[in-house]
């Protein structure tokens, strides 16, 4: 009878933990997003230049932050999976990819809706927009590669290599607005000499960002659970084939 070392134990322990954290993360996400939306759309002041159009920012900016954060998390998990071969890292990296792709899509769509009234164009091929589009394609490639192998483990490792290689795009996305004189504005919040955004707009923005982050954690936990279930199905199927 073949044995299956460390294939089931660790995800099971994680599942117990995640069941405890999930309700809190979900409640936090719902609360923060609810408060943040009302605050941003109802009470935050219009911008001195852009007027009410600026309210797109409260969705666009957190989504763009999460798009990058998700990829950074995914790349870090992938690197640790390649080095230490920890199953949970693989599950979490796989679970992260579609969420990150959604955040990137939201950032791109809201960005183009914001670009039309302020810049005068839905889409411009400047360095920031182009590198974020590449980020979106990287997410899609990661998801396609992870699912393209008959052996899940192998797909996970190939996708992990891709995620680590693709991480070179992250600094390009972040610093494109500083390195090149782009149409996209430079950073307003994450800059060395303090935010260039008034407190009455910064706080609702940060609330929304925290809500997005909590939402990410909640969805990630649910998705890891799903990935781990899919993995167990495969292990059991193999065990049956081996036993027969």
């Amino acid at each position, binding site marked *: 009878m073949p044995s299956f070392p460390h294939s089931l134990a660790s995800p099971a322990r994680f599942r117990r933990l995640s069941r405890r954290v999930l309700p809190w993360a979900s409640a936090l996400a719902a609360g923060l997003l609810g408060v943040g939306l009302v605050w941003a759309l109802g009470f935050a002041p219009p911008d001195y230049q852009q007027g009410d159009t600026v309210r797109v920012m409260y969705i666009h900016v957190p989504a763009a932050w999460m798009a990058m954060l998700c990829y950074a998390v995914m790349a870090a998990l992938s690197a640790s999976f390649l080095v230490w071969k920890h199953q949970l890292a693989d599950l979490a990296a796989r679970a992260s990819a579609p969420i990150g792709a959604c955040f990137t899509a939201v950032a791109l769509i809201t960005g183009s809706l914001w670009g039309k009234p302020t810049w005068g164009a839905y889409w411009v091929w400047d360095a920031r927009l182009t*590198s974020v*589009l590449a980020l979106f394609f990287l997410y899609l*490639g990661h998801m396609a*590669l992870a699912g*393209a192998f008959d052996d899940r483990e192998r797909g996970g490792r*190939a996708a992990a*290599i*891709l995620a*680590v*290689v693709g991480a070179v795009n992250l600094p390009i996305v972040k610093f494109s607005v500083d390195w090149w004189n782009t149409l996209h504005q430079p950073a307003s919040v994450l800059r060395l000499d303090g935010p260039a955004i008034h407190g009455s707009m910064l706080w609702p923005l940060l609330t929304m960002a925290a809500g997005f982050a909590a939402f990410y954690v909640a969805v990630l936990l649910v998705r890891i659970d799903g990935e781990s279930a899919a993995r167990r199905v495969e292990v059991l199927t193999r065990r049956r084939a081996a036993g027969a």
Partner: protein
Amino acid sequence: MSAFWTLVRRDVTLAVRRGGEAALTLGFFVVTVALFPFGVGPDPALLGRIAAGVVWVTALLAATVSLDRLFRPDLEDGSLDLLALSPLPLEAAVLAKCLAHWLVTGLPVTLLSPLMAAMLRLDGAAHGPLAVSLAVGTPALSLTGGIGAALVLGARRGGALCGLLVLPLFIPVLVFGVSGVEAAQAGLPALPHILIEAAILVAAVPLAAFAGAAALRLALE
């Protein structure tokens, strides 16, 4: 070092003997470029404006179509096992194979680009920058392409998947390759753009070596 060149020479020989792979790539490149005047009309001003982009995108596609053959035949006939076991580090073997890929795709495309540029009525002053940008950029395509080709070994529908993985990684090379030529067309120096392309090329060497070798080891398991 001699093992490295032995591998390069074998891959180039194979590509040349296998129905002239270099000639096929070149044919693909020339025919595709020649399709554009039919598609967008023969207006010289329009063609001249899009020439750099057309030549670059076509060169990129020419590099992509042959990527699937970079490692797959070696995997299928067991050559990859022996490459991984030979005293030559697998990282170096990946670089050798990417170099051979460039010699039969990127290099001929670069050499032929002035002719294509003339066909598309590109401004004469931009011919040199176009050739230089291709000479610096196409090796980077072969290297990043090598990563994609190694990653999809053993995957279902590997060929189509390889394109999906590799094309977003090609975007920076394409952007700076074309922007250098456009700068030259506008009478500005192309050098800064070429330097960034060179930076991408230099960074792609270790990236392709490590990621490519890791992907090949995965495919051999």
